[in-house]
């Protein structure tokens, strides 16, 4: 009976063979016997056709017996022996699935269904049919009577030595279909609305293929029995050859007809994605990954993405497209990919407003730089000449001049450009000063000299890089008359005004208001401040005096020294000095309570000894004073007949100074002589400004109302070497030498500061100190 299992198996092997005939019915009684018999031969896979048919017949017989219905038999194919070899369909639906359990065992007409029916029976209930019971017992006899389908499967599969795919297919197909029917009967109407809890559990491992090893390890327990078996078998084989018990017979397996089945699946869409990982790309990802925060700058640098973004212009492009673009491109690292998705979400929510862009700091900075670049393009040859860089035009000219050989070229002035803008037109340039630290920064003060037609003053800080618009513009309440940059804190600009106020501005900040104002001070000046200067006192009189102090001279006759107290933010005046008005030629030593004080117009500190300074008054007197002695002047130099506009020590010869006044003259003095060594007069105009050249000791520049002059004492002491007349209607008011180049700045009453370059001008090698001294010496000698 155990072999019936094998019989069933054999039946399964040959699904296509099937015979349902009445003949099956007839041999029902002997079916079991038949089965048994056939089972013995069923060990081998290759079963004969007849055997199969018998088996099948046996099966079908049982089937007919158990079920009431008659299966349909329309076509029957008989082979030469009269056996039914009708090809069976692969699967036929199971009509008897719901019927009695007996029929379930072999309910379907096909053997393919039997396997599934096995399963169905196992799911349903145990065997309780009498006839089927016997059968089932036999069927299940090989293994334990278990309901789990796996055990049967396993027991079945153990014996199966050569599984064919065909069989598997049929098994699975029928299996699936039967199960589906099972499920269908369970679902009812009211159950549709129920919430069904689905529990996903791990199912037991289904073994689809198990090929047990045919070799056994020598160490295992079965080794002995296996060895014994093997030896017995070899003996059997040996005995077989000449033995009568064994007869060789040939068999033929039936080759099943193959059937092609076509399956169609959806086309797998492939998408190509590419990206470029640049050096900086990896660096950015690394940096942003290390920071652990979103770094917006990493995204825009992606060349591939950015190019894709900017291929589509116009408002139709949305941020969603960028997101899809990003997602399709491969990312270097997974972390960066996460971070890159995020920042592109942010801009989509709040797109930068065009107005916001225009207001932003970076935009202003870019505009600033752009303007400078544009101006550099425009002014490039002029600026290059200023910086004394060789220009192409200059070189061409040099070649031409050398060919001409006319003689030494005459020194001349070449106008490079002028600092002016619409703000400054119409204003009078009163003073100019270079920044001590940045030689490209120029501060220009605009204010009227005369008492009438006063208007609010202006201070403009110009940069060489932008001659068309000042960097800083400060408006002051009254006309500006004096300017100076501090040396210690290079951004402090002291401004003296026509109403006596002194203010300091910080040019680094964008504020338009002064840092400190002296208008609150008790002892402030009451008359126009004509000159301010920052002086550094090395030798301090007391602890307070160290550092830089602001000295100012004003028309109320006082020279005041101001200290800026950082904590108090207030100018504090520490000492003053008064001028005394000379009455006639005698000096008045006594101090009257009400002394008429001469308005001071200018002063200059000694270049090396910061204690000594010269002061010029409206009367034309030059007083040499000392900081440590407040009461009296040390010396007085009298030569000028008009107010002194400028006194300046020579930067090279420490005891020589120049003075200019409205009496049309410029006087050269030596400290120890009370009469001027040399006097210069060129035109009958008041000389407003004079300045020593920072490069040559014998050169100085002077500006009077109508023209600008450069004097070279080594060339001539009677006439200026270069004369540049002013434009008609414009008065020249101030002069400034550029410290590092051969340029001169001239300010005029129309608000223009013109930059001139000295061409073909040289006073000789070195600073010409010796020449100056020689000139002075020879002049003195000739005077004696």
């Amino acid at each position, binding site marked *: 009976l155990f072999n019936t299992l094998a019989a069933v198996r054999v039946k399964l092997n040959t699904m296509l063979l099937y015979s349902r005939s009445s003949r099956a019915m007839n041999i029902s009684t002997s079916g079991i016997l038949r089965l048994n018999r056939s089972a013995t031969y069923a060990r081998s896979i290759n079963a004969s056709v007849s055997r199969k048919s018998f088996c099948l017949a046996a099966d079908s017989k049982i089937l007919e017996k158990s079920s009431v219905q008659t299966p349909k038999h329309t076509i029957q194919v008989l082979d030469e022996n009269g056996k039914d070899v009708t090809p069976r369909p692969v699967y036929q639906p199971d009509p008897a699935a719901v019927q009695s359990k007996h029929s379930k065992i072999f309910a379907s007409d096909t053997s393919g269904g039997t396997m599934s029916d096995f399963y169905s029976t196992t799911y349903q209930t145990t065997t309780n049919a009498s006839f089927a019971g016997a059968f089932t017992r036999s069927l299940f006899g090989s293994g334990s009577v278990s309901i789990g389908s796996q055990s049967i499967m396993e027991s079945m599969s153990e014996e199966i030595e050569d599984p064919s795919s065909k069989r598997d297919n049929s098994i699975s197909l029928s299996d699936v279909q039967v199960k589906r029917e099972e499920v269908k009967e369970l679902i009812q109407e009211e159950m549709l609305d129920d919430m069904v809890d689905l529990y996903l559990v791990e199912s037991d491992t289904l073994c689809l293929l198990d090929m047990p090893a045919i070799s056994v390890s020598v160490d295992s327990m079965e080794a002995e029995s296996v060895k014994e078996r093997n030896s017995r078998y070899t003996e059997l084989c040996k005995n077989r050859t000449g033995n009568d018990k064994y007869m060789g017979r040939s068999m033929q397996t039936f080759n099943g007809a193959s059937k092609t089945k076509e399956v169609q699946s959806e086309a797998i869409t492939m998408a190509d994605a590419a990206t470029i990982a*640049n*050096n*900086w790309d*990896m*660096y*950015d990802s690394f940096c942003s990954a290390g920071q652990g925060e979103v770094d*917006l*700058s990493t995204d*825009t*640098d992606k*060349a591939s993405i*950015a*190019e894709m*973004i*900017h291929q589509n*212009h*116009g*408002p139709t*492009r949305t941020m969603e497209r960028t997101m899809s673009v990003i997602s399709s491109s491969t990312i270097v690292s997974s972390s960066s990919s996460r971070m890159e998705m995020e920042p592109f979400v942010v801009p989509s929510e709040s797109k*930068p407003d*065009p107005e916001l*862009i*225009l*207001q*932003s700091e*970076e*935009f*202003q900075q*870019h*505009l*600033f*730089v*752009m*303007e400078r*670049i*544009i*101006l550099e*393009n*425009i002014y*490039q040859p002029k600026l290059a000449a200023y910086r004394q860089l060789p220009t192409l035009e200059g070189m061409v000219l040099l070649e031409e001049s050398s060919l001409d050989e006319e003689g030494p070229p005459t020194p001349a002035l070449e106008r490079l450009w002028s600092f002016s803008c619409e703000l400054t037109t119409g204003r009078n340039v009163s003073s100019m000063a270079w920044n001590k630290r940045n030689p490209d920064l120029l501060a220009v003060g605009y204010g009227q000299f005369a008492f009438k037609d006063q208007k609010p003053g202006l201070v403009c800080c110009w940069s060489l890089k932008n001659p*068309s*618009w000042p960097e800083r513009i400060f408006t002051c309440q009254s006309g500006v008359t004096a300017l100076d940059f501090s040396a210690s804190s290079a951004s402090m600009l002291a401004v003296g005004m026509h109403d006596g106020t002194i203010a300091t501005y910080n040019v680094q900040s964008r504020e338009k208001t002064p840092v400190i104002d002296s208008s609150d001070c008790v002892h402030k000046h009451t008359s126009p401040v004509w000159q301010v200067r920052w002086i550094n006192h090395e030798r301090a009189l007391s602890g307070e005096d160290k550092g830089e102090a602001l000295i100012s001279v004003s028309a109320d006759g006082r020279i005041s020294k101001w200290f800026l107290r950082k904590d108090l933010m207030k100018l504090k005046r520490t000492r003053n000095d008064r001028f005394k008005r000379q009455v006639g030629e005698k000096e008045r030593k006594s101090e009257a309570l009400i002394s008429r004080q001469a308005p001071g117009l200018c002063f200059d500190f000694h270049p090396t000894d910061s204690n000594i300074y010269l002061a010029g008054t409206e009367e034309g007197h030059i007083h040499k004073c000392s900081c440590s002695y407040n009461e009296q002047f040390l010396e007085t130099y009298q030569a000028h007949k008009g107010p002194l506009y400028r006194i300046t020590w020579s930067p090279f010869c420490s005891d020589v100074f120049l003075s200019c006044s409205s009496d049309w003259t410029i006087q050269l003095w030596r400290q120890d002589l009370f009469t001027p060594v040399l006097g210069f007069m060129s035109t009958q105009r008041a000389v407003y400004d004079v300045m020593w050249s920072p490069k040559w000791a014998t050169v100085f520049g002077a500006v009077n109302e109508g023209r600008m002059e450069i004097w070279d004492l080594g060339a001539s002491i009677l006439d200026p070497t270069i004369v540049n007349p002013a434009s008609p209607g414009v008065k020249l008011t101030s002069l400034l030498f550029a410290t590092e180049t051969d340029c001169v700045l001239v300010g005029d009453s129309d608000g223009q500061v013109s930059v001139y370059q000295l061409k073909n001008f040289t006073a000789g090698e070195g600073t010409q100190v010796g020449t100056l001294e020689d000139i002075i010496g020879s002049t003195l000698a000739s005077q004696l």
Partner: protein
Amino acid sequence: QAEVEETLKRIQTHKGVIGTIVVNAEGIPIRTTLDNSTTVQYAGLLHQLTMKARSTVRDIDPQNDLTFLRIRSKKHEIMVAPDKEYMLIVIQNPSE
């Protein structure tokens, strides 16, 4: 602010300046003194070039970054100030 407007106006009135363009990050012009088609063309082409230039600069040294780009041609000079959110372009004829 008014200062920005003033500076922009000043730039446009400088000698030799042919046009000024400010575009945002998407290529939409914010301010321009040229016609729309020219503006869009300049913006698109220069953006690509700026990207390439920036990539070059940063490839050599990733800590570096592009601040300004000037292209001088026979007829004029194109100056580009690139930024994350916008691009400022000025075309000037320097030899005028």
